[in-house]
Protein backbone atom coordinates (compact mmCIF):
# COMPACT_ATOMS: atom_id res chain seq x y z
CA UNK A 1 0.00 0.00 0.00
CA UNK A 2 2.41 2.63 1.23
CA UNK A 3 4.59 1.49 -1.62
CA UNK A 4 1.91 2.15 -4.18
CA UNK A 5 1.19 5.57 -2.79
CA UNK A 6 4.83 6.40 -2.97
CA UNK A 7 5.05 5.17 -6.53
CA UNK A 8 2.08 7.16 -7.67
CA UNK A 9 3.46 10.23 -6.03
CA UNK A 10 6.84 9.90 -7.67
CA UNK A 11 5.16 9.07 -10.94
CA UNK A 12 3.05 12.18 -10.89
CA UNK A 13 6.11 14.20 -10.12
CA UNK A 14 7.97 12.57 -12.97
CA UNK A 15 5.33 13.54 -15.42
CA UNK A 16 4.98 17.08 -14.26
CA UNK A 17 8.72 17.15 -14.48
CA UNK A 18 8.87 15.94 -18.00
CA UNK A 19 6.19 18.17 -19.35
CA UNK A 20 7.63 21.45 -18.16
CA UNK A 21 11.03 19.94 -18.51
CA UNK A 22 13.02 21.80 -15.92
CA UNK A 23 10.56 21.97 -13.04
CA UNK A 24 12.61 19.17 -11.52
CA UNK A 25 15.22 21.76 -10.78
CA UNK A 26 12.91 22.88 -8.02
CA UNK A 27 13.64 19.72 -6.07
CA UNK A 28 16.60 19.96 -3.77
CA UNK A 29 19.76 18.77 -5.52
CA UNK A 30 20.97 15.67 -3.69
CA UNK A 31 24.58 14.76 -2.99
CA UNK A 32 26.22 12.15 -5.22
CA UNK A 33 26.82 8.72 -3.58
CA UNK A 34 29.96 8.62 -1.42
CA UNK A 35 32.91 8.00 -3.80
CA UNK A 36 34.66 4.63 -3.52
CA UNK A 37 38.38 5.14 -2.83
CA UNK A 38 40.54 3.84 -5.67
CA UNK A 39 42.76 0.90 -4.56
CA UNK A 40 46.54 1.23 -5.03
CA UNK A 41 47.73 -0.58 -8.08
CA UNK A 42 50.33 -3.40 -8.33
CA UNK A 43 51.95 -4.21 -11.67
CA UNK A 44 51.23 -7.89 -11.06
CA UNK A 45 47.54 -7.06 -10.80
CA UNK A 46 47.74 -5.04 -13.98
CA UNK A 47 49.34 -8.01 -15.70
CA UNK A 48 46.52 -10.25 -14.53
CA UNK A 49 43.97 -7.72 -15.74
CA UNK A 50 45.67 -7.44 -19.12
CA UNK A 51 46.02 -11.15 -19.59
CA UNK A 52 42.43 -11.77 -18.54
CA UNK A 53 41.24 -9.14 -20.98
CA UNK A 54 43.18 -10.80 -23.77
CA UNK A 55 41.95 -14.26 -22.85
CA UNK A 56 38.33 -13.14 -22.65
CA UNK A 57 38.31 -11.05 -25.79
CA UNK A 58 39.94 -13.77 -27.86
CA UNK A 59 37.54 -16.26 -26.32
CA UNK A 60 34.67 -14.08 -27.50
CA UNK A 61 36.14 -14.19 -31.00
CA UNK A 62 36.36 -17.96 -30.86
CA UNK A 63 32.77 -18.12 -29.63
CA UNK A 64 31.84 -16.04 -32.64
CA UNK A 65 33.15 -18.82 -34.86
CA UNK A 66 29.95 -20.67 -34.07
CA UNK A 67 28.21 -18.22 -36.33
CA UNK A 68 30.81 -18.92 -38.98
CA UNK A 69 30.33 -22.65 -38.84
CA UNK A 70 26.55 -22.30 -38.92
CA UNK A 71 26.70 -20.04 -41.94
CA UNK A 72 29.24 -22.08 -43.89
CA UNK A 73 27.50 -25.36 -43.23
CA UNK A 74 24.00 -24.23 -44.01
CA UNK A 75 25.15 -22.24 -47.00
CA UNK A 76 26.73 -25.35 -48.48
CA UNK A 77 23.58 -27.39 -47.88
CA UNK A 78 20.18 -27.26 -49.54
CA UNK A 79 17.50 -24.77 -48.59
CA UNK A 80 15.22 -27.54 -47.37
CA UNK A 81 17.69 -28.47 -44.63
CA UNK A 82 18.75 -24.99 -43.65
CA UNK A 83 16.67 -24.67 -40.48
CA UNK A 84 17.92 -28.02 -39.29
CA UNK A 85 21.58 -27.14 -39.76
CA UNK A 86 21.13 -23.76 -38.15
CA UNK A 87 19.42 -25.46 -35.22
CA UNK A 88 22.18 -28.02 -34.88
CA UNK A 89 24.92 -25.44 -34.97
CA UNK A 90 23.06 -23.21 -32.60
CA UNK A 91 22.19 -25.76 -30.00
CA UNK A 92 25.57 -27.49 -30.11
CA UNK A 93 27.31 -24.68 -28.26
CA UNK A 94 24.69 -24.81 -25.55
CA UNK A 95 25.33 -28.53 -25.27
CA UNK A 96 29.08 -28.00 -25.07
CA UNK A 97 28.66 -25.26 -22.49
CA UNK A 98 26.75 -27.58 -20.21
CA UNK A 99 28.73 -30.74 -20.92
CA UNK A 100 32.10 -29.10 -20.51
CA UNK A 101 30.97 -27.47 -17.27
CA UNK A 102 29.55 -30.66 -15.81
CA UNK A 103 32.45 -32.96 -16.56
CA UNK A 104 34.56 -32.01 -19.58
CA UNK A 105 36.74 -29.43 -17.88
CA UNK A 106 37.55 -31.77 -15.00
CA UNK A 107 38.46 -34.67 -17.24
CA UNK A 108 40.67 -32.39 -19.30
CA UNK A 109 42.49 -30.27 -16.75
CA UNK A 110 42.00 -32.01 -13.44
CA UNK A 111 45.21 -33.41 -12.01
CA UNK A 112 45.18 -37.10 -12.70
CA UNK A 113 46.86 -39.81 -14.71
CA UNK A 114 48.51 -39.39 -18.06
CA UNK A 115 45.25 -40.45 -19.62
CA UNK A 116 42.51 -38.50 -17.89
CA UNK A 117 41.99 -35.88 -15.22
CA UNK A 118 40.71 -37.22 -11.96
CA UNK A 119 40.49 -34.32 -9.52
CA UNK A 120 37.85 -31.58 -9.39
CA UNK A 121 35.95 -33.39 -12.07
CA UNK A 122 32.49 -31.92 -11.76
CA UNK A 123 31.28 -28.34 -12.24
CA UNK A 124 34.83 -26.89 -12.16
CA UNK A 125 34.54 -27.29 -8.41
CA UNK A 126 38.10 -28.32 -7.57
CA UNK A 127 40.38 -26.35 -5.26
CA UNK A 128 42.10 -23.58 -7.20
CA UNK A 129 43.84 -20.33 -6.32
CA UNK A 130 44.09 -18.86 -9.80
CA UNK A 131 45.31 -16.40 -10.97
CA UNK A 132 48.29 -17.62 -8.96
CA UNK A 133 50.76 -19.26 -11.30
CA UNK A 134 53.70 -21.65 -11.19
CA UNK A 135 55.03 -22.26 -7.72
CA UNK A 136 52.42 -20.04 -6.14
CA UNK A 137 49.63 -22.12 -7.59
CA UNK A 138 47.66 -24.35 -5.26
CA UNK A 139 44.88 -26.41 -6.70
CA UNK A 140 43.87 -29.39 -8.76
CA UNK A 141 44.08 -27.84 -12.20
CA UNK A 142 47.84 -27.45 -12.26
CA UNK A 143 48.27 -28.33 -15.92
CA UNK A 144 46.84 -24.93 -16.83
CA UNK A 145 48.35 -23.02 -13.93
CA UNK A 146 50.95 -21.52 -16.25
CA UNK A 147 48.56 -18.74 -17.25
CA UNK A 148 47.84 -16.06 -14.67
CA UNK A 149 44.13 -15.51 -15.12
CA UNK A 150 41.12 -16.35 -12.95
CA UNK A 151 39.74 -19.86 -13.11
CA UNK A 152 36.54 -18.84 -14.91
CA UNK A 153 38.61 -17.13 -17.59
CA UNK A 154 40.55 -20.35 -18.13
CA UNK A 155 37.31 -22.29 -18.21
CA UNK A 156 35.62 -19.98 -20.66
CA UNK A 157 38.56 -19.94 -23.02
CA UNK A 158 38.79 -23.72 -22.99
CA UNK A 159 35.04 -24.04 -23.36
CA UNK A 160 34.91 -22.19 -26.66
CA UNK A 161 37.54 -24.54 -28.00
CA UNK A 162 35.53 -27.54 -26.90
CA UNK A 163 32.52 -26.05 -28.66
CA UNK A 164 34.48 -25.75 -31.87
CA UNK A 165 35.42 -29.41 -31.87
CA UNK A 166 31.79 -30.40 -31.38
CA UNK A 167 30.51 -28.10 -34.08
CA UNK A 168 32.87 -29.48 -36.71
CA UNK A 169 30.94 -32.74 -36.74
CA UNK A 170 27.68 -31.02 -37.60
CA UNK A 171 28.54 -30.18 -41.18
CA UNK A 172 29.79 -33.58 -42.20
CA UNK A 173 26.64 -35.38 -41.04
CA UNK A 174 24.29 -32.70 -42.31
CA UNK A 175 21.13 -33.19 -44.37
CA UNK A 176 20.37 -36.68 -43.04
CA UNK A 177 21.01 -37.01 -39.32
CA UNK A 178 18.27 -36.87 -36.71
CA UNK A 179 18.32 -33.69 -34.69
CA UNK A 180 18.06 -35.41 -31.33
CA UNK A 181 20.68 -38.02 -32.15
CA UNK A 182 23.11 -35.29 -33.08
CA UNK A 183 22.48 -33.52 -29.80
CA UNK A 184 23.20 -36.69 -27.86
CA UNK A 185 26.44 -37.26 -29.74
CA UNK A 186 27.48 -33.68 -29.07
CA UNK A 187 27.17 -34.35 -25.35
CA UNK A 188 29.48 -37.33 -25.70
CA UNK A 189 31.97 -35.17 -27.60
CA UNK A 190 31.96 -32.35 -25.08
CA UNK A 191 31.93 -34.50 -21.97
CA UNK A 192 34.19 -37.39 -22.89
CA UNK A 193 35.95 -37.63 -26.23
CA UNK A 194 37.27 -34.08 -26.54
CA UNK A 195 38.33 -33.70 -22.90
CA UNK A 196 40.29 -36.94 -22.88
CA UNK A 197 42.35 -36.01 -25.91
CA UNK A 198 42.62 -32.52 -24.50
CA UNK A 199 44.05 -34.00 -21.32
CA UNK A 200 46.68 -35.91 -23.25
CA UNK A 201 47.95 -32.78 -25.01
CA UNK A 202 46.99 -29.73 -22.93
CA UNK A 203 46.10 -31.30 -19.61
CA UNK A 204 49.60 -32.52 -18.80
CA UNK A 205 48.81 -35.97 -20.20
CA UNK A 206 51.10 -38.49 -21.81
CA UNK A 207 51.46 -36.72 -25.16
CA UNK A 208 52.41 -33.46 -23.45
CA UNK A 209 55.03 -35.37 -21.44
CA UNK A 210 56.23 -37.00 -24.64
CA UNK A 211 57.06 -33.50 -25.94
CA UNK A 212 54.26 -33.24 -28.45
CA UNK A 213 53.25 -29.67 -29.36
CA UNK A 214 49.90 -28.41 -30.57
CA UNK A 215 49.75 -24.70 -30.01
CA UNK A 216 46.12 -23.97 -30.69
CA UNK A 217 44.58 -27.30 -31.55
CA UNK A 218 45.14 -28.74 -35.01
CA UNK A 219 45.02 -32.05 -33.20
CA UNK A 220 43.05 -31.34 -30.05
CA UNK A 221 40.27 -29.49 -31.82
CA UNK A 222 40.34 -30.17 -35.54
CA UNK A 223 41.50 -33.76 -35.71
CA UNK A 224 39.17 -34.68 -32.89
CA UNK A 225 36.25 -33.08 -34.69
CA UNK A 226 37.39 -34.54 -37.99
CA UNK A 227 37.75 -38.13 -36.84
CA UNK A 228 34.40 -38.04 -35.08
CA UNK A 229 32.90 -36.65 -38.28
CA UNK A 230 34.50 -39.38 -40.37
CA UNK A 231 33.01 -42.08 -38.17
CA UNK A 232 29.64 -40.39 -38.50
CA UNK A 233 29.88 -40.08 -42.26
CA UNK A 234 30.74 -43.75 -42.64
CA UNK A 235 28.04 -44.97 -40.29
CA UNK A 236 25.34 -42.65 -41.66
CA UNK A 237 26.07 -43.26 -45.31
CA UNK A 238 25.68 -40.73 -48.12
CA UNK A 239 22.69 -38.52 -48.78
CA UNK A 240 20.05 -39.89 -51.15
CA UNK A 241 21.10 -39.05 -54.70
CA UNK A 242 24.70 -38.17 -53.97
CA UNK A 243 26.07 -41.36 -55.50
CA UNK A 244 23.37 -42.68 -57.78
CA UNK A 245 24.07 -45.52 -60.19
CA UNK A 246 27.81 -45.32 -59.84
CA UNK A 247 28.04 -41.61 -60.53
CA UNK A 248 29.03 -38.77 -58.26
CA UNK A 249 26.24 -36.22 -58.34
CA UNK A 250 26.73 -32.67 -57.21
CA UNK A 251 24.27 -31.30 -54.69
CA UNK A 252 24.85 -27.54 -54.84
CA UNK A 253 24.64 -25.46 -51.69
CA UNK A 254 21.72 -23.08 -51.50
CA UNK A 255 23.41 -19.91 -50.38
CA UNK A 256 27.02 -19.14 -51.23
CA UNK A 257 26.72 -15.60 -49.88
CA UNK A 258 25.97 -17.11 -46.51
CA UNK A 259 28.86 -19.54 -46.88
CA UNK A 260 31.26 -16.72 -47.75
CA UNK A 261 30.08 -14.58 -44.88
CA UNK A 262 30.58 -17.59 -42.63
CA UNK A 263 34.12 -18.16 -43.84
CA UNK A 264 35.03 -14.53 -43.23
CA UNK A 265 33.69 -14.89 -39.72
CA UNK A 266 35.77 -18.01 -39.17
CA UNK A 267 38.89 -16.28 -40.47
CA UNK A 268 38.12 -13.40 -38.11
CA UNK A 269 37.50 -15.77 -35.22
CA UNK A 270 40.77 -17.53 -35.87
CA UNK A 271 42.53 -14.36 -34.76
CA UNK A 272 41.10 -15.25 -31.38
CA UNK A 273 41.73 -18.94 -31.78
CA UNK A 274 45.45 -18.80 -32.48
CA UNK A 275 46.77 -15.55 -31.00
CA UNK A 276 44.51 -16.09 -28.01
CA UNK A 277 46.13 -19.41 -27.24
CA UNK A 278 49.04 -17.55 -25.72
CA UNK A 279 46.49 -17.01 -22.92
CA UNK A 280 48.51 -13.91 -22.05
CA UNK A 281 48.96 -10.50 -23.63
CA UNK A 282 52.47 -11.43 -24.75
CA UNK A 283 53.24 -8.79 -27.38
CA UNK A 284 55.73 -10.72 -29.46
CA UNK A 285 53.75 -13.93 -29.29
CA UNK A 286 50.38 -12.57 -30.28
CA UNK A 287 51.64 -10.47 -33.13
CA UNK A 288 53.80 -13.24 -34.52
CA UNK A 289 50.93 -15.72 -34.31
CA UNK A 290 48.47 -13.34 -35.94
CA UNK A 291 50.81 -12.87 -38.88
CA UNK A 292 51.64 -16.56 -39.36
CA UNK A 293 47.95 -17.37 -39.11
CA UNK A 294 47.00 -14.82 -41.72
CA UNK A 295 49.90 -15.70 -44.00
CA UNK A 296 48.86 -19.35 -44.05
CA UNK A 297 45.26 -18.46 -44.81
CA UNK A 298 46.31 -16.15 -47.62
CA UNK A 299 48.65 -18.67 -49.18
CA UNK A 300 46.03 -21.40 -48.93
CA UNK A 301 43.40 -19.23 -50.58
CA UNK A 302 45.71 -18.59 -53.48
CA UNK A 303 46.84 -22.17 -53.90
CA UNK A 304 43.35 -23.65 -53.55
CA UNK A 305 42.01 -21.17 -56.08
CA UNK A 306 44.81 -21.88 -58.53
CA UNK A 307 44.52 -25.64 -58.16
CA UNK A 308 40.76 -25.61 -58.68
CA UNK A 309 41.39 -23.34 -61.63
CA UNK A 310 43.71 -25.90 -63.16
CA UNK A 311 41.83 -29.04 -62.15
CA UNK A 312 38.27 -27.82 -62.74
CA UNK A 313 39.04 -25.17 -65.38
CA UNK A 314 37.18 -22.64 -63.25
CA UNK A 315 37.95 -21.26 -59.80
CA UNK A 316 35.19 -22.71 -57.64
CA UNK A 317 34.20 -20.40 -54.79
CA UNK A 318 33.57 -23.37 -52.54
CA UNK A 319 37.16 -24.46 -53.03
CA UNK A 320 38.49 -20.98 -52.33
CA UNK A 321 36.55 -20.87 -49.08
CA UNK A 322 37.60 -24.37 -48.04
CA UNK A 323 41.15 -23.39 -48.99
CA UNK A 324 41.08 -20.55 -46.52
CA UNK A 325 39.85 -22.80 -43.74
CA UNK A 326 42.38 -25.46 -44.65
CA UNK A 327 45.22 -23.00 -44.28
CA UNK A 328 43.88 -21.85 -40.95
CA UNK A 329 43.50 -25.37 -39.63
CA UNK A 330 46.97 -26.34 -40.80
CA UNK A 331 48.66 -23.37 -39.14
CA UNK A 332 46.77 -23.83 -35.88
CA UNK A 333 49.27 -26.21 -34.35
CA UNK A 334 52.46 -24.56 -35.62
CA UNK A 335 51.47 -20.89 -35.64
CA UNK A 336 53.66 -20.00 -32.65
CA UNK A 337 56.52 -22.32 -33.53
CA UNK A 338 57.26 -21.46 -37.17
CA UNK A 339 58.42 -18.46 -39.16
CA UNK A 340 56.18 -16.39 -41.40
CA UNK A 341 57.85 -17.87 -44.47
CA UNK A 342 57.18 -21.37 -43.20
CA UNK A 343 53.59 -20.32 -42.60
CA UNK A 344 53.31 -19.33 -46.24
CA UNK A 345 54.58 -22.74 -47.32
CA UNK A 346 52.33 -24.59 -44.90
CA UNK A 347 49.34 -22.62 -46.10
CA UNK A 348 50.14 -23.14 -49.75
CA UNK A 349 50.32 -26.89 -49.26
CA UNK A 350 47.13 -26.94 -47.21
CA UNK A 351 45.27 -25.22 -50.02
CA UNK A 352 46.32 -27.91 -52.44
CA UNK A 353 45.57 -30.71 -49.99
CA UNK A 354 42.02 -29.57 -49.37
CA UNK A 355 41.08 -29.51 -53.04
CA UNK A 356 42.52 -32.97 -53.61
CA UNK A 357 40.87 -34.23 -50.43
CA UNK A 358 37.44 -33.02 -51.49
CA UNK A 359 37.80 -34.88 -54.77
CA UNK A 360 39.20 -37.93 -52.98
CA UNK A 361 36.39 -38.25 -50.44
CA UNK A 362 33.90 -38.12 -53.30
CA UNK A 363 35.78 -40.89 -55.06
CA UNK A 364 35.76 -42.85 -51.79
CA UNK A 365 31.99 -42.40 -51.73
CA UNK A 366 32.22 -40.60 -48.41
CA UNK A 367 29.57 -37.91 -48.51
CA UNK A 368 30.66 -34.82 -46.62
CA UNK A 369 28.32 -32.02 -47.69
CA UNK A 370 30.53 -29.17 -46.47
CA UNK A 371 34.06 -30.53 -46.77
CA UNK A 372 34.58 -30.82 -43.03
CA UNK A 373 36.81 -33.86 -43.45
CA UNK A 374 38.99 -32.24 -46.07
CA UNK A 375 39.35 -29.11 -44.00
CA UNK A 376 39.55 -30.25 -40.40
CA UNK A 377 40.72 -33.85 -40.53
CA UNK A 378 43.17 -33.80 -43.41
CA UNK A 379 44.65 -30.43 -42.55
CA UNK A 380 44.47 -30.99 -38.83
CA UNK A 381 46.77 -33.95 -39.38
CA UNK A 382 48.93 -32.02 -41.80
CA UNK A 383 49.26 -29.09 -39.43
CA UNK A 384 50.19 -31.31 -36.51
CA UNK A 385 52.94 -32.88 -38.60
CA UNK A 386 54.12 -29.47 -39.79
CA UNK A 387 55.22 -28.69 -36.23
CA UNK A 388 57.63 -31.60 -36.52
CA UNK A 389 58.89 -30.30 -39.82
CA UNK A 390 58.98 -26.51 -39.63
CA UNK A 391 59.36 -25.75 -35.92
CA UNK A 392 62.15 -23.37 -34.97
CA UNK A 393 63.19 -23.55 -31.35
CA UNK A 394 62.06 -20.60 -29.21
CA UNK A 395 60.88 -18.57 -32.21
CA UNK A 396 58.29 -17.01 -29.91
CA UNK A 397 59.78 -18.33 -26.70
CA UNK A 398 58.54 -21.91 -26.43
CA UNK A 399 61.30 -24.51 -26.35
CA UNK A 400 59.93 -26.88 -28.96
CA UNK A 401 63.30 -27.79 -30.33
CA UNK A 402 63.78 -27.61 -34.09
CA UNK A 403 61.71 -29.52 -36.61
CA UNK A 404 63.13 -31.87 -39.22
CA UNK A 405 63.65 -29.15 -41.82
CA UNK A 406 65.57 -27.04 -39.33
CA UNK A 407 68.02 -29.67 -38.25
CA UNK A 408 66.06 -30.92 -35.28
CA UNK A 409 65.89 -34.46 -36.59
CA UNK A 410 62.97 -36.76 -35.85
CA UNK A 411 62.43 -36.25 -32.12
CA UNK A 412 59.70 -33.67 -32.47
CA UNK A 413 58.28 -35.24 -35.61
CA UNK A 414 57.88 -38.59 -33.88
CA UNK A 415 56.00 -37.05 -30.99
CA UNK A 416 53.70 -35.32 -33.47
CA UNK A 417 53.15 -38.54 -35.39
CA UNK A 418 52.42 -40.41 -32.20
CA UNK A 419 49.72 -37.87 -31.46
CA UNK A 420 48.27 -38.08 -34.94
CA UNK A 421 48.01 -41.84 -34.79
CA UNK A 422 46.85 -42.35 -31.22
CA UNK A 423 44.37 -39.51 -31.29
CA UNK A 424 43.06 -40.78 -34.61
CA UNK A 425 42.59 -44.32 -33.37
CA UNK A 426 41.11 -43.23 -30.08
CA UNK A 427 38.65 -40.68 -31.44
CA UNK A 428 37.57 -42.71 -34.42
CA UNK A 429 37.08 -45.77 -32.25
CA UNK A 430 35.28 -43.98 -29.44
CA UNK A 431 33.00 -41.98 -31.67
CA UNK A 432 32.17 -44.99 -33.81
CA UNK A 433 31.03 -46.70 -30.63
CA UNK A 434 29.00 -43.63 -29.70
CA UNK A 435 27.40 -43.34 -33.15
CA UNK A 436 26.52 -47.02 -33.19
CA UNK A 437 25.13 -46.94 -29.68
CA UNK A 438 22.97 -43.93 -30.55
CA UNK A 439 21.76 -45.63 -33.70
CA UNK A 440 20.81 -48.71 -31.69
CA UNK A 441 18.99 -46.71 -29.03
CA UNK A 442 17.24 -43.93 -30.91
CA UNK A 443 18.11 -44.21 -34.56
CA UNK A 444 20.54 -41.98 -36.42
CA UNK A 445 19.09 -41.19 -39.80
CA UNK A 446 15.79 -39.64 -40.80
CA UNK A 447 13.35 -41.54 -43.00
CA UNK A 448 13.71 -41.50 -46.76
CA UNK A 449 10.50 -39.47 -47.09
CA UNK A 450 11.74 -36.91 -44.61
CA UNK A 451 15.11 -36.63 -46.32
CA UNK A 452 13.36 -36.04 -49.64
CA UNK A 453 11.06 -33.35 -48.27
CA UNK A 454 13.79 -31.84 -46.16
CA UNK A 455 14.68 -31.99 -42.49
CA UNK A 456 13.38 -28.50 -41.87
CA UNK A 457 9.81 -29.65 -42.16
CA UNK A 458 10.50 -33.14 -40.89
CA UNK A 459 12.48 -32.32 -37.77
CA UNK A 460 11.32 -28.79 -36.99
CA UNK A 461 8.11 -28.15 -38.90
CA UNK A 462 9.72 -24.93 -40.12
CA UNK A 463 10.63 -23.48 -43.47
CA UNK A 464 13.82 -21.43 -43.76
CA UNK A 465 12.73 -19.11 -46.56
CA UNK A 466 8.98 -18.82 -46.36
CA UNK A 467 7.57 -17.00 -49.37
CA UNK A 468 10.53 -17.66 -51.63
CA UNK A 469 10.01 -19.95 -54.56
CA UNK A 470 12.51 -22.65 -53.88
CA UNK A 471 12.49 -25.28 -56.55
CA UNK A 472 14.86 -28.17 -56.53
CA UNK A 473 14.67 -31.51 -58.25
CA UNK A 474 16.84 -33.09 -55.56
Amino acid sequence: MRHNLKINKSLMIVNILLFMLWAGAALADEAAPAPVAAPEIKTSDLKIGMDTMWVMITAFLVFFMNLGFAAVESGFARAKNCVNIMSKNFVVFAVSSIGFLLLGWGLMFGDGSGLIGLKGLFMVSGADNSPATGGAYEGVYSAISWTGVPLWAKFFFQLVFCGTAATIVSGAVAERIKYLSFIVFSFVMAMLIYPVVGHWVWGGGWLAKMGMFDFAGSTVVHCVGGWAALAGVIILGPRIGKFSNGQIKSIPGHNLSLATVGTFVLWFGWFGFNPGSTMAADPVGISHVAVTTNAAAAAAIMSATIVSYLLLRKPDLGMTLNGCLAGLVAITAPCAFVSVSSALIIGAIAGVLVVLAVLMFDRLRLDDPVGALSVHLVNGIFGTICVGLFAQDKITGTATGNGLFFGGGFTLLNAQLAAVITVGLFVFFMSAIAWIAIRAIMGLRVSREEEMRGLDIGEHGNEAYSGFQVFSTM
Partner: protein
Amino acid sequence: MKLIIAYIQPHKLEEVKAALAKAEVGKMSVTNSLGCGAQMGYEESYRGVKFEVNLLKKVRLEIAVNESFVDKTVNAIIGAARTGQIGDGKIFIVDLVECIRIRTGERGSAAIG
Protein backbone atom coordinates in the same frame (compact mmCIF):
# COMPACT_ATOMS: atom_id res chain seq x y z
CA MET B 1 -0.77 -30.85 -82.95
CA LYS B 2 -1.28 -31.22 -79.26
CA LEU B 3 -0.09 -29.38 -76.19
CA ILE B 4 0.70 -31.83 -73.43
CA ILE B 5 0.68 -30.51 -69.89
CA ALA B 6 2.04 -32.84 -67.25
CA TYR B 7 2.37 -32.44 -63.50
CA ILE B 8 4.98 -34.71 -61.91
CA GLN B 9 6.92 -35.04 -58.71
CA PRO B 10 9.97 -32.73 -58.77
CA HIS B 11 12.45 -35.49 -58.05
CA LYS B 12 11.15 -37.37 -61.11
CA LEU B 13 12.09 -34.61 -63.54
CA GLU B 14 15.49 -35.98 -64.47
CA GLU B 15 14.10 -39.44 -65.23
CA VAL B 16 11.20 -38.05 -67.21
CA LYS B 17 13.54 -35.90 -69.28
CA ALA B 18 15.68 -38.93 -69.98
CA ALA B 19 12.64 -40.99 -70.99
CA LEU B 20 11.41 -38.20 -73.28
CA ALA B 21 14.82 -37.93 -74.87
CA LYS B 22 14.68 -41.65 -75.59
CA ALA B 23 11.30 -41.07 -77.19
CA GLU B 24 12.96 -38.37 -79.31
CA VAL B 25 11.01 -35.63 -77.59
CA GLY B 26 13.75 -33.16 -76.83
CA LYS B 27 11.90 -29.91 -76.43
CA MET B 28 9.81 -28.85 -73.51
CA SER B 29 9.18 -26.10 -71.01
CA VAL B 30 9.32 -26.65 -67.28
CA THR B 31 7.69 -24.60 -64.55
CA ASN B 32 7.48 -25.18 -60.84
CA SER B 33 4.00 -25.33 -59.50
CA LEU B 34 2.10 -26.14 -56.35
CA GLY B 35 -0.36 -28.96 -56.50
CA CYS B 36 -3.44 -29.71 -54.53
CA GLY B 37 -4.87 -33.16 -55.00
CA ALA B 38 -5.44 -36.46 -53.32
CA GLN B 39 -1.99 -36.46 -51.81
CA MET B 40 -1.95 -35.58 -48.15
CA GLY B 41 -0.24 -32.37 -47.10
CA TYR B 42 1.76 -31.89 -43.94
CA GLU B 43 1.78 -29.69 -40.89
CA GLU B 44 4.11 -26.78 -40.36
CA SER B 45 4.41 -24.65 -37.28
CA TYR B 46 5.90 -21.25 -36.65
CA ARG B 47 6.53 -19.79 -33.25
CA GLY B 48 3.89 -22.01 -31.73
CA VAL B 49 1.17 -21.59 -34.34
CA LYS B 50 0.50 -24.65 -36.47
CA PHE B 51 -0.79 -24.59 -40.03
CA GLU B 52 -1.63 -27.14 -42.70
CA VAL B 53 0.30 -27.10 -45.95
CA ASN B 54 -1.72 -28.80 -48.69
CA LEU B 55 -0.07 -27.23 -51.71
CA LEU B 56 2.75 -29.55 -52.62
CA LYS B 57 5.69 -28.83 -54.85
CA LYS B 58 5.18 -30.21 -58.34
CA VAL B 59 6.83 -29.69 -61.67
CA ARG B 60 4.73 -28.65 -64.62
CA LEU B 61 5.86 -29.76 -68.06
CA GLU B 62 4.51 -28.20 -71.22
CA ILE B 63 5.29 -30.09 -74.38
CA ALA B 64 3.99 -29.27 -77.83
CA VAL B 65 4.03 -32.31 -80.12
CA ASN B 66 2.69 -33.52 -83.41
CA GLU B 67 -0.14 -36.06 -83.29
CA SER B 68 2.22 -38.88 -84.08
CA PHE B 69 4.20 -38.11 -80.94
CA VAL B 70 1.34 -37.86 -78.48
CA ASP B 71 1.28 -41.46 -77.32
CA LYS B 72 5.06 -41.80 -77.23
CA THR B 73 5.25 -38.72 -75.11
CA VAL B 74 2.48 -39.72 -72.74
CA ASN B 75 3.93 -43.19 -72.33
CA ALA B 76 7.40 -41.86 -71.73
CA ILE B 77 6.11 -39.57 -69.00
CA ILE B 78 4.01 -42.24 -67.35
CA GLY B 79 6.81 -44.76 -67.58
CA ALA B 80 9.27 -42.51 -65.83
CA ALA B 81 7.04 -40.63 -63.41
CA ARG B 82 4.91 -43.43 -62.03
CA THR B 83 5.69 -44.72 -58.58
CA GLY B 84 2.18 -46.01 -57.95
CA GLN B 85 1.85 -43.71 -54.99
CA ILE B 86 -0.66 -40.93 -54.62
CA GLY B 87 0.86 -37.70 -55.87
CA ASP B 88 2.40 -39.09 -59.02
CA GLY B 89 0.57 -36.50 -61.02
CA LYS B 90 -1.56 -35.94 -64.07
CA ILE B 91 -1.25 -35.39 -67.76
CA PHE B 92 -3.57 -33.01 -69.60
CA ILE B 93 -3.80 -32.72 -73.37
CA VAL B 94 -5.26 -29.82 -75.31
CA ASP B 95 -5.48 -29.11 -79.01
CA LEU B 96 -2.81 -26.92 -80.43
CA VAL B 97 -4.06 -24.87 -83.33
CA GLU B 98 -0.81 -23.21 -84.23
CA CYS B 99 2.86 -23.34 -83.40
CA ILE B 100 5.41 -20.78 -84.52
CA ARG B 101 9.18 -20.71 -84.19
CA ILE B 102 10.12 -17.16 -83.41
CA ARG B 103 13.62 -17.44 -84.82
CA THR B 104 12.52 -18.50 -88.30
CA GLY B 105 8.84 -17.74 -88.45
CA GLU B 106 8.21 -21.37 -89.42
CA ARG B 107 4.69 -22.49 -88.59
CA GLY B 108 2.86 -25.70 -87.82
CA SER B 109 4.37 -29.13 -87.36
CA ALA B 110 7.67 -27.96 -88.73
CA ALA B 111 8.07 -25.52 -85.90
CA ILE B 112 7.37 -27.92 -83.09
CA GLY B 113 10.64 -29.88 -83.00
